[in-house]
């Protein structure tokens, strides 16, 4: 497989008995994330058997079925709990959790902060499209203030979550934010996240034209990609921009990178001590 590149490489990792093209809408960024994830896993040289993709419910949940790894499609918001069990049971497995923004921060918010606090060695990809896509365009915890959705027809009144700050505060070992426009940066972030011990979070800004863009002034998916290109800036550059000019810009990059050992490493070390001392 060494000489295969680009799309051919991705085709190698897709499940041949699944129906393609995949279920995502035209212009959805989830497919790009899928490609990025496959390239990252290939780049790290991981065996297909050693990778377990755990996904929640929603558009992002459908992502798992398409790739030829060990895949688990779980209940809404609970992907991290299943991943915790798999990682504790098989510490050698690379467990990657794919969640949406509502999945991870609304119904699964408790599991997200506790997985970060517990520092379990899984990598969470949070596909943030600011909306509940599959459910039909209701507002999510990351829907920006003022946005028009099915459940906020007069505009969102609540504050939105900042996933990076939430996970940083909860104590995650690795926190990064990327976007589906800056794919190569995303590739390297996902690779870093998988390699880093302990709990890693990569928030991925991905556009949802069908449910979010159409209602909020975007004319095509391409326009949403232009917005990503303009608004997602490297965090070093973001810091230089005066606060008044930041507007809709969001910083991207790696925000936290610690090498605290994950819970499973600590547990098995303790277990070895217990068994040795008996």
């Amino acid at each position, binding site marked *: 497989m060494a000489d295969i590149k680009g*799309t051919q490489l991705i085709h190698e990792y897709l499940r041949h008995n699944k129906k393609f093209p*995949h279920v995502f809408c035209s212009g959805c960024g989830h497919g790009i994330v899928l490609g990025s994830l496959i390239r990252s896993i290939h780049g790290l040289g991981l065996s297909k058997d050693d990778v377990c993709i755990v996904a929640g419910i929603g558009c992002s949940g459908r992502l798992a079925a398409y790739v030829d790894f060990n895949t688990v499609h779980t209940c809404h918001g609970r992907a991290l709990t299943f991943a915790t069990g798999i990682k504790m049971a098989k510490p050698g497995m690379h467990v990657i959790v794919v969640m949406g923004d509502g999945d991870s921060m609304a119904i699964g918010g408790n599991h997200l902060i506790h997985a970060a606090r517990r520092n379990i060695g899984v990598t969470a990809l949070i596909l943030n499209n600011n909306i509940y896509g599959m459910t039909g365009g209701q507002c999510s915890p990351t829907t920006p203030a003022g946005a028009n959705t099915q459940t906020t027809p007069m505009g969102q009144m609540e504050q939105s979550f900042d996933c990076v700050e939430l996970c940083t505060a909860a104590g995650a070992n690795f926190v990064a934010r990327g976007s589906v426009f800056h794919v190569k940066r995303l590739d*390297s972030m996902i690779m870093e996240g998988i390699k880093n011990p302990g709990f890693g979070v990569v928030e991925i800004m991905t556009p949802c034209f069908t449910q979010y863009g159409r209602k909020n002034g975007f004319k095509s998916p391409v326009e949403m990609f232009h917005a990503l290109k303009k608004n997602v800036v490297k965090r070093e550059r973001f810091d230089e921009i005066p606060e008044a000019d930041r507007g809709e810009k969001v910083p991207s990059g790696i925000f936290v990178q610690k090498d605290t050992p994950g819970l499973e490493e600590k547990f098995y070390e303790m277990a070895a001590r217990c068994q040795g001392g008996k």
Partner: protein
Amino acid sequence: MFRGSFVSRDREAYGKFTPNPDQVMSAKSKGKSIVTIFPDWCKGCGICAAFCPVKVMELNDQGKAVVVREEECINCGFCELHCPDFAIMVQPKVDSEIPAGSKSAHVNAAPNGSVESEKSIKEKG
């Protein structure tokens, strides 16, 4: 190796891990690539056509992407990385393998995922 600022780490990662290092932006090789689009997989989002720096692709009247100026392709890899449907393939041109008349044939079938079948599609061309 991965300590230090984000920028340096980023750059290091490019050389080491990017699976297709010859397709980074700097490796410009105009006219040396074949761009294949699988129309069965293309959903016509238009990202490739909008962002291609040399406008190799266009959307046809069915809303699907088609290759119109393949000779202009600088092999930057943008379309391949950003196609959400894995419907674009950029390959280096190898004259002996690809008969001249087969270019149009690439457009006819969706991949079965395996390399063998893609080759056979070309050969049938």
